[in-house]
């Protein structure tokens, strides 16, 4: 199918029946009996002429408007591989396990790519997208806080229901629509390309939900929520009385009963804002468990399928009814039958937005996600598709998680195989998440020094991370033969990786060092963010993976530190003390670098984020609880979570990679150089605010 054509919604086709209806009204209202024969024939001829036209308009795919006016022959292919680590890449290339990368590095160029401050994916990809650092695009962390209320929110997007509504009994009638807002600021490089008519396809780039308005084809990536509006909430149905029911991190354990070999339960959908109190919309499903065999038949909304124990279903489409007969929202999920006997255990993936009928905007044009679904089958639309939380919670084991993670990559490769051959001009950007998420989860299987290392598990799945790297090499192997003199290739990652052995609880350290005071008799171990903090005596607090904030007068609701010199002195005092922290277990410094926002960032949002960015030593990271403003008892503790590798540390320790089929002139290229590089390839001057330069010496002179 032509890239510009789709079977999707066509405004012309939509209007056509209306035009025909007008014609019929005009003819039918004034009835004439016994039309003259000649007139009748004329009319018949006319009708026979317009009928095929009507059919063509209705039947033939609607062609979207011609995309771009650019007629140049230059092509740029970018493979964005989240979390590809230069050290691991070099090791695998040396061992001959990544021959295509080795060839590209030898014949083209290979550099370490300076990552963002802090080196977190939303920040790093925003640097790449905009050519600015966090001071310019306003994304400082996965988690931001509202300075007025200190409430936490996801940094990249905000989905809100309607602001006003009328309440009628148990129903809520919204007055106006809800909204999905992207919080990344600055112009994306593909929006600049659009302005110059350069065609582009941008697949799943992070920090682009809802997708920025674009003429090209884009699909949102990391930051895209599931249908419940979260980063992914799985459900786990079990009759195991020892499993604590209720919410777990990233999911929900739902107790069920097996009666007469049947389980009846509900899929949990989005909050129904049309009902008072916004209860979650649910849809029932039924599982018939064979009394003897390890298999079950699952029935959901008229769809039936059998799963054996240890088997995943295909995608199953589910429609949640918000208003009977009127307001439905469609999603899709996958089922995994973990066990039938003696205990029933069924995992259901987060309910993903259905790309064929998206409930929230996930692509430009809006029909693009449906086109991809038609061409390459259904796929995970939630930004973080690998269910890392289910593995961390023990709901899935390593083997089960790996199967799911491999499915995610297989889906991406299927789409790549469908899309890449169609690329003829302009920019083609394709994002792969697998190395990042799997380095997070599988590092402990490759590193005997890790507290979570298990020799048996390592023997079973220790090579899995290497397999994912090799799959990236296979993807590159598909691209290399297609390169010619007019095609530039960039293979890059947003950051590298390292082990995550020990957690540092920043807020506990701030508490122990007198920067935070709690109210008298308060429980410091509360899970509420910054619960029981006595703000009248608190000077600094930690939120997010690397963020440290000064409790500044005039900014925080109960700020006590005067901005300016007083705050600056306090920042430097805390920085010196943090850099002096040593791990009593290893003797190593826990923190190797602390950036001050005033020095690290440029741009209009430079002072909107944390005041200080804590850069941890390799092997260390902010503890899980301290990220959300809690105070665990210990300042340092072993990380035994399956999430065992990380990159949210000192940015200098986790550079990404940059490979190209052309020589890279820049000695120390950075993520912020990529947008100017892309634009320069097409002779486009970099936008105001972009702080980088093209990494190629031979790039055309920007005008």
């Amino acid at each position: 199918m032509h890239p510009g054509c789709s079977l999707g919604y066509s405004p012309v086709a939509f209007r056509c029946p209306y035009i025909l209806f007008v014609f019929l009204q005009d003819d039918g209202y004034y009835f004439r009996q016994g039309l003259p024969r000649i007139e009748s024939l004329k009319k018949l001829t006319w009708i026979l002429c317009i009928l095929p036209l009507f059919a063509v308009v209705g039947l033939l795919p609607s062609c979207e408007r011609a995309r771009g006016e650019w007629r140049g022959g230059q092509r740029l292919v970018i493979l964005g591989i989240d979390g590809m680590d230069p050290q691991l890449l070099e090791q695998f290339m040396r061992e001959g396990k990544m021959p295509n990368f080795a060839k590209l590095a030898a014949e083209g160029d290979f550099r370490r790519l300076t990552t963002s401050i802090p080196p977190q994916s939303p920040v790093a990809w925003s640097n790449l997208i905009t050519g600015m650092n966090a001071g310019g695009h306003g994304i400082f962390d996965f988690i931001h806080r509202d300075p007025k209320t200190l409430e936490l929110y996801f940094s990249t997007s905000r989905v809100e229901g309607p602001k006003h509504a009328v309440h009628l009994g148990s129903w809520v009638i919204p007055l106006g629509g809800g909204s999905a807002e992207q919080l990344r600021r600055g112009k994306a490089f593909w929006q600049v390309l659009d302005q110059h008519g350069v065609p582009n396809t941008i697949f799943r780039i992070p920090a682009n939900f809802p997708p920025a308005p674009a003429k090209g084809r884009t699909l949102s990536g990391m930051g895209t929520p599931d249908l419940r509006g979260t980063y992914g909430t799985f459900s786990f149905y079990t009759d195991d009385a020892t499993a604590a029911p209720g919410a777990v991190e990233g999911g929900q354990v739902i107790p069920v009963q097996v009666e007469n070999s049947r389980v009846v339960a509900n899929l949990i959908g989005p909050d129904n804002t049309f009902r008072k109190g916004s209860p979650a919309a649910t849809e029932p499903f039924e599982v018939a468990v064979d009394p003897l065999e390890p298999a079950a038949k699952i029935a959901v909304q008229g769809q039936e399928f059998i799963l054996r124990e240890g088997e995943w279903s295909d995608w199953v489409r589910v429609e949640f009814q918000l208003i009977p007969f009127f307001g439905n929202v469609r999603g899709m999920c996958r089922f995994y039958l973990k066990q039938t006997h003696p205990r029933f255990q069924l995992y259901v993936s987060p309910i993903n937005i259905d790309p064929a009928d998206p409930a929230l905007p996930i692509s430009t044009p809006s029909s693009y996600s449906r086109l991809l679904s038609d061409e390459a089958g259904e796929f995970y639309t939630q930004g973080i598709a690998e269910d890392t939380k289910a593995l961390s919670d023990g709901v899935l084991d390593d083997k089960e998680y790996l199967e799911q993670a491999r499915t995610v990559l297989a889906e991406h490769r299927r789409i790549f195989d469908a899309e890449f051959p169609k690329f003829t001009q302009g920019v083609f950007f394709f994002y792969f998440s697998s190395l990042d998420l799997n380095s997070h989860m599988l590092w402990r299987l490759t590193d005997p020094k890790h507290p979570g290392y298990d020799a048996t598990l390592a023997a079973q799945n220790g090579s899995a991370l290497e397999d994912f790297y090799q799959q990236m090499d296979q993807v590159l192997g598909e691209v290399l033969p297609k390169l010619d003199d007019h095609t530039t290739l960039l293979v890059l990652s947003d950051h590298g990786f390292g082990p995550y052995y020990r957690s540092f609880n920043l807020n506990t350290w701030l508490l122990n060092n007198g920067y935070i005071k709690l109210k008298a008799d308060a429980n410091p171990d509360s899970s509420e963010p910054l619960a029981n903090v006595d703000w009248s005596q608190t000077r600094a607090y930690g939120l997010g993976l690397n963020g440290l904030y000064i409790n500044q007068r005039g900014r925080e609701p109960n700020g006590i530190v005067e901005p300016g010199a007083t705050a600056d002195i306090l920042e430097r005092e805390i920085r010196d003390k943090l850099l002096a922290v040593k791990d009593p277990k290893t003797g190593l410094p826990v923190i190797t670098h602390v950036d001050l926002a005033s020095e690290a960032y440029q741009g209009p949002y430079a002072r909107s984020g944390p005041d200080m960015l804590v850069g941890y030593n390799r092997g260390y990271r902010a503890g899980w609880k301290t990220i959300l403003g809690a105070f665990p008892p210990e300042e340092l503790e072993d990380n035994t979570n399956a999430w065992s590798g990380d990159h949210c540390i000192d940015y200098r320790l986790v550079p990404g990679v940059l490979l190209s089929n052309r020589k890279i002139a820049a000695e120390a290229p950075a993520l912020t150089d990529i947008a100017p590089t892309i634009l320069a390839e097409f002779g486009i001057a970099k936008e105001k605010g972009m702080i980088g330069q093209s990494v190629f010496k031979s790039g055309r002179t920007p005008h």
Partner: protein
Amino acid sequence: MLHTLATTVPSLRAAMGFLSFNVPALIVSLISLVIGLLMVMVFGYTSDQKAIHIAKEHLKAHLLALRLFQDQIPVVMRSYGRILLATGRYLRLAFKPLLFVILPLTILVVQLDRYLGSIPLEPGQPFLVKARVANPELLNEASLQLPSGLATTSPAVHVPATNEVAWRVVAEKDGDYEVNVQASDQTLVKRVVVASGLARLSPVRLRGQFWERMLVSGEPALPENSPIQAIEVQYSSRNIAFAGLEWNWIWLFFVLSMVAGFLFKSVLGIEI
């Protein structure tokens, strides 16, 4: 030549791809056109055209009265009453031709639904074969025998609550297969179609249940003494892409035949 062109010219490739995928839409469009024409002709021959004309003229007159004398409440009220009466008269006149078309139309829709209502199975696509037995004792006796080209990919799932046994089956290649379900020394056959185009499909073979059999099944009834009440094969329902929307074929047929009917009635000078 056309194939070569199609591989090089993207729009032609799109059109060819579309045509191969949207044969059902073309068929429904053509059938709707023909049926629309036939229905108008049948209506013309079987209805009292003059009476219908008069009824419609009366309706128009009363509607006009509503507009002209809107300041005179008694006239308006009387006109509303007469509009109701004229509408009733019109519906009564239209009912007779409806009697002539309803039966053949129902038969046509039922038969077309065998072809257009569901999609044949694809090679490699897992599907369920389900057998509903007469009583729970027979549940463990039921077994499935497959011809070459079909294979089970899971153990049978026995569902005591509904007296049902289900098997997951997959086909290696296209074909018109017969699967055998055995219970109490009886072997019962069910047709399974694995194909890429249009095919006559019967999702269920039933024992008794005359009306349901007429409407849903396209196979002979199971014997009355059969231990199996129903054998079902899970075909996916078909959606047809037309005018940017996904349609069930019956709705599409209904809309297009109405459009065609309205077009042809004016050409043929038939009063509807």
